[in-house]
């Protein structure tokens, strides 16, 4: 596939990008729609925007449904505005698997910021399958970043594996927990725990807040122990690369080569456990201070570069896999379609391995030819 064709930009789209960069809200909204629809030309738009990104602090907010994510995001946005920062918010809500329809309710909670155009709030539905959602969310964050927002907040659906994908687009991840949710914390251990840079006990004026705080503290400190280094979140990738990490060397790859990790070792980030009452705004200032501290930590330790590299690596892999998958789907069609192939396997006329080899053969041949041509021209 011709890469330049896939990212080529029509004149209208080039204008759209220009308008976005010059501060048109309408253009920004339209670009996010294009991204969300994965419509023709969105690749060109996003690839043009990329060079303008990198200025925003990206914060992910996740946690179980009803934990108060939307309300907290509203108060956070207002507090950032108070100190003069511009804010972008991407809030993801679930969609019906049957009709595709969705009621995107997060906006109702944005009471503190209505009428303030410098808070750009965008609801997205979890339309996606096949990782399309996380891709669209990441691209929407890029659009807000390129637009010039100082802070971009991503609010997730509130349950499931998707969280981890979406949250990977964030530099700093806050996990929201409500008091008295002992069982919630049990489930958090499985996946969400690893991705949190900050744990927030929201509704901290409710019974059981102290206990939940204590439980989280305990979990966070257990996670610090070397034996707990088996996590798979983005920190899981980071941890083993520290030269003097106590896990012995299995994961050390000196990809950055610059030794910038050296001075990072004494500044390992310990997840903070904080408390808020999002309804009243209590604790929001402290939370922002914690976010700032984490952002500073990422910059000073050089971890931000590593995090970003990992993120882009994942993005490249996702795109390549998707594109190759499309080629493969085309080949499956050419071989009579998936149903016919499956039926042939069922009748014992052939087997899945043979089918897969036949389908991939033409693609393989192309790749081999390209390699040969490449070698000849060198």
């Amino acid at each position, binding site marked *: 596939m011709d890469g330049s064709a896939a990212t080529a930009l029509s004149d*209208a789209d080039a204008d759209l990008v220009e308008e976005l960069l010059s501060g*048109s*809200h*309408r253009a920004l*909204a*339209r670009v*996010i*729609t*294009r991204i*969300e*629809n*994965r*419509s*023709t030309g969105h*690749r060109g738009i996003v690839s043009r925007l990329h060079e303008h990104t990198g200025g925003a602090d990206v914060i992910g907010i996740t946690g179980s449904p009803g934990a108060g994510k939307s309300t907290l995001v509203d108060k956070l946005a207002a507090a950032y505005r108070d100190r003069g920062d511009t804010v972008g918010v991407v809030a993801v809500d679930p*969609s*019906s698997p049957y*009709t*595709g*329809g*969705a*009621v*995107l*309710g997060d*906006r*109702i909670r944005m*009471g503190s910021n*209505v*009428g*303030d*155009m410098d808070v*750009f*709030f*965008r*609801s997205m*539905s979890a*339309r*996606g399958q*096949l*990782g*399309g959602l996380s*891709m669209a969310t990441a691209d929407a964050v890029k659009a807000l970043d390129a637009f010039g927002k100082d802070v971009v907040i991503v609010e997730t659906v509130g349950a499931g594996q998707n969280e981890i994908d979406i949250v990977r687009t964030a530099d700093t991840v806050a996990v929201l927990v409500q008091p008295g949710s002992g069982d919630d914390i049990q489930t958090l251990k499985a996946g969400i725990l690893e991705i949190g840079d900050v744990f927030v006990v929201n509704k901290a004026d409710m019974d059981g807040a102290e206990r939940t705080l204590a439980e989280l503290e305990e979990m966070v400190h257990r996670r610090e122990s070397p034996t707990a280094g088996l996590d798979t979140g983005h920190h899981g990738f980071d941890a083993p690369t520290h030269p003097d990490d106590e896990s012995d060397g299995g994961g050390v790859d000196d990809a950055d080569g610059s030794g910038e990790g050296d001075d990072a070792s004494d500044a390992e980030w310990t997840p903070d456990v904080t408390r808020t009452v999002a309804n009243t705004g209590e604790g929001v200032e402290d939370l922002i201070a914690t976010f700032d501290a984490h952002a500073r930590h990422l910059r000073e330790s050089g971890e931000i570069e590593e995090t970003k590299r990992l993120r882009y690596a994942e993005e490249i892999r*996702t*795109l390549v896999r*998707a*594109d190759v*998958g*499309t080629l493969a*789907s085309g080949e499956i069609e050419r071989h009579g379609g998936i149903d016919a192939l499956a039926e042939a396997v069922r009748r014992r006329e052939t087997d899945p391995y043979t089918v897969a080899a036949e389908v991939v053969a033409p693609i393989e041949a192309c790749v081999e030819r390209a390699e040969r041509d490449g070698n000849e021209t060198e």
Partner: protein
Amino acid sequence: MSVEQEERAIRCLVAKVGLDGHDRGAHVIARAFRDAGFEVVYSGLHRAPEDIVQAAVQEDVDVLGISILSGAHNTLVPKVIDGLKEYDAFEDTLVLVGGIIPDDDEAELKQLGVAEVFGPGTPMEETIEFIRNNVSERA
């Protein structure tokens, strides 16, 4: 392409403007739209016209449905429409009004650019059908 596959959905903003606390109708509409496969953003109660404009622009909705039962439509709807124009968002947004609107006012609202007015008792299917047929084709 799997990541590339176009997933166009009709996006609607269901909006309550002004001092009007009756939102049962808006809720029912929001749910019906959702079941029709639309993505529905609900504004919440007591919004000012500029709040509605902000939401419509940022959410880049195809349809703006304003529910008004307070009788203040002649004041509020023009403000919303002017706001949309200010952000170049009027041309391709289908503006609908639902509620109790006298016939004379209905004509006036349509003059302003409201695509249709739906009174009490309008079958849900009629509204959904109207949206499907009239939503503007975008790039």
